[in-house]
């Protein structure tokens, strides 16, 4: 006959597993294993079945399991457990390391702050009032946060100025690099196939319908011939007979 805890360990089963398999509460099983209570006959079949043994193999009153000896080399945390038997954090013999004092703000951070202050419309003194201490007493983290705040303010102001500028723009957008309007105009003329009068730099004129054009030239059909005009040579042109 064997103790209940012996059989359970031999089968590689935890107390929790056995409780789950038998439906007997863990506390009850623990009391059986420690010999505090005899195993009642009503529970024996369930235990035997769960442990794959015969009923007679289980001692109805177990001998208490041997106390686990503490290992001298083990850490302190493994020897002593927290309240309620749960594993607690290892206890420290040495006091917790005191964190180092926060690093002071870098010179570059302070220089940047002094530079940003007027940009956001504040004096250095106002900034110091805002943070409640002189700038050179700021920690690195505080300076970093303050820099971020000021940059945010600056970014918002720029955005606002940009939007206002768009409304108050005195000059229209300069169409640098594009000839959109002229290309659209030429396209319309080409589609209508109406005669256009081109006045060239030497005073001569070409009248015809536009059959094609590119950035640098316009091809015109005059009677039965096609003439390609370099746009550089054209002084002005107009639809023959006015606006259609």
């Amino acid at each position, binding site marked *: 006959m064997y103790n209940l805890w012996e059989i359970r360990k031999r089968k590689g089963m935890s107390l929790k597993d056995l409780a789950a398999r038998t439906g007997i509460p863990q506390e009850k099983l623990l009391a059986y294993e420690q010999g505090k209570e005899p195993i009642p006959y009503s529970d024996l079949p369930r235990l035997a079945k769960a442990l794959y043994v015969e009923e007679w193999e289980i001692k109805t009153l177990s001998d208490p399991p041997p106390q686990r000896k503490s290992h001298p080399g083990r850490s302190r945390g493994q020897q002593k457990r927290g309240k309620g038997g749960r594993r607690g954090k290892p206890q420290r013999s040495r006091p917790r390391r005191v964190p180092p004092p926060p690093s002071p703000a870098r010179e570059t951070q302070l220089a940047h702050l002094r530079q940003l202050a007027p940009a956001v419309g504040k004096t250095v003194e106002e900034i110091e009032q805002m943070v409640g201490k002189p700038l050179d007493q700021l920690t690195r983290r505080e300076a970093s946060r303050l820099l971020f705040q000021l940059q945010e303010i600056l970014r918002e102001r720029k955005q606002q100025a940009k939007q206002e500028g768009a409304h108050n723009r005195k000059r229209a957008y300069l169409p640098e690099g594009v000839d959109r309007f002229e290309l659209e105009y030429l396209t319309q003329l080409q589609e209508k196939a109406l005669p256009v009068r081109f006045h060239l730099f030497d*005073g001569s004129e070409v009248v015809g319908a536009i059959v094609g054009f590119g950035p640098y030239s316009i091809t015109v059909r005059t009677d039965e011939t096609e003439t390609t005009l370099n746009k550089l040579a054209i002084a002005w042109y107009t639809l023959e007979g006015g606006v259609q």
Partner: protein
Amino acid sequence: MSSGDYLRFLRALHGGKDFFSIEEETGIPSGLMRQIEQRYRAVGDEATLRKLAEYYGVPPEEVLWRHEWSRARLTFALEDAMRDDVPIRLNLRTGESFTGKVQWVDLAATCLKVGDREIIVQRHWVDTWELLRPEGESSSEEDASPPSSATGEEGA
């Protein structure tokens, strides 16, 4: 007329060669010609402008004094005329003059409504201009163009 527009005008008079050919012949950096002619700000240093003036056979001063006037000046005047809905007079180097309301402004050309006609004027032929604001309205210095020539000599 700005140096950019003037050089474009000179190029037109000299057979309308492309930028690449002129840059190769004059030895000025590739791509600079296009910038000089098309950028609204004044592009190109004095040495480059002198080379181009020599190439086109005009006194360097004719190009250099125009460099003070960016291409944007004419564009601004045209934009103002369009915004304020006032007529503008464009005096062309062909001797013609057009007065009308600006319909649109482009990189190289502008559209003027003259009577019932729409006239597309290539801006490198615009020598001088004048915004014709109603009497009593203040005019800005950009309303009028610079004098057509500083030296009194025209290269073309």
